[in-house]
């Protein structure tokens, strides 16, 4: 359970290009699949990065499993992010020139787990996503859907309980979008929390989604469960 109390976020505070991306957000995210929706500029991505400990709120408080995380120092925040959250970025952000497997094991590098163990975890995750045969190939040869699945495998290599995905279906056709929803359903069945942003109606009305949060101009318009 993740809760936000009166959270706001202002970028470039005090400078001429100051932007308030979020204001006064109160929200509770339960296990399951939560979709953040709204037009671009409504604060979806900012909310994701706050929840994922990538940035700190300007005001307000965020708790994770009852623990306040918004005021933790940088080092603890990084540690928390590594172990509790997996990220899938809109442009996937795989590192070119490296193989799929090398990309997938990257988040585990700073944790110092034995390589054999990490590699086994990565391979089983790739296997589950249907990419086992391409583990040794450079990421450039993957198709769009495969690239996304590689990014999901990377997000899950540390066995994070929360998967965060920014516009996961923006670059996918309908068939691949459905494939993605199947994966999300599988993760939900594993007991993981999935938080997505999207303005794709296919996603919002899809079966595995448990909650939809609608944002407009940095504030919550409505929450549907």
């Amino acid at each position, binding site marked *: 359970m993740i809760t936000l109390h009166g959270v706001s976020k202002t970028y470039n505070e005090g400078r001429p290009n100051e932007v308030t991306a979020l204001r006064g957000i109160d929200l509770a995210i339960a296990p399951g699949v939560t979709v953040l929706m709204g037009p671009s500029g409504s604060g979806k991505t900012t909310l994701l990065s706050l929840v994922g400990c990538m940035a700190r709120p300007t005001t307000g408080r965020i708790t994770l499993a009852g623990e306040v995380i918004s005021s933790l120092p940088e080092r603890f925040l990084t540690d928390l992010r590594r172990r509790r959250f997996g990220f899938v970025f809109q442009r996937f952000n795989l590192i070119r020139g490296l193989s799929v*497997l*090398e990309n997938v094991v990257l988040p585990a590098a700073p944790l110092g787990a034995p*390589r*054999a163990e990490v*590699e086994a975890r990565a391979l089983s995750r790739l296997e589950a996503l249907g990419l086992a045969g391409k583990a*040794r190939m450079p990421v450039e040869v993957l198709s769009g859907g495969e690239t996304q699945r590689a990014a999901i495998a990377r997000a899950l290599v540390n066995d994070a309980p929360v998967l965060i995905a920014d516009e996961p279906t923006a670059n996918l056709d309908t068939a691949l979008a459905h494939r993605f929803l199947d994966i999300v359903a599988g993760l939900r069945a594993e007991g993981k929390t999935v938080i997505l942003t999207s303005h794709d109606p296919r996603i919002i009305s899809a079966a595995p989604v448990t909650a939809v949060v609608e944002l407009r101009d940095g504030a919550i318009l409505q929450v549907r469960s």
Partner: protein
Amino acid sequence: MSLRPATPVLAAFGALLALAGGEAAHAVLTAPREAARLQAEARLVRDLGLTDLALFTEARYTRHPSLADLATAFQDNPLSFDHFPSGSLIAPPEHFGPTALSFSAGDLR
């Protein structure tokens, strides 16, 4: 588990370090022999009253730099290339035959 990318690089480092170790061992192992050689040289120096290394034999002041004349850094071999720019202005005497540099005085004209 597959071959990790750093393994060959670390192996190369290991090989280089082993080679460095081999060289260090060479230095240590040859030390007694070299010490004996230096002693033989020192004996020769004492017996002959040597003052300099026979490393540069091109001129008196390079063969025996420690005993060189104070003001005369002239060439011992008039046809050898000069160490000083003035050598390019003065032609060597004509009566010198061919030298080890295999040209004669006439060639310089």
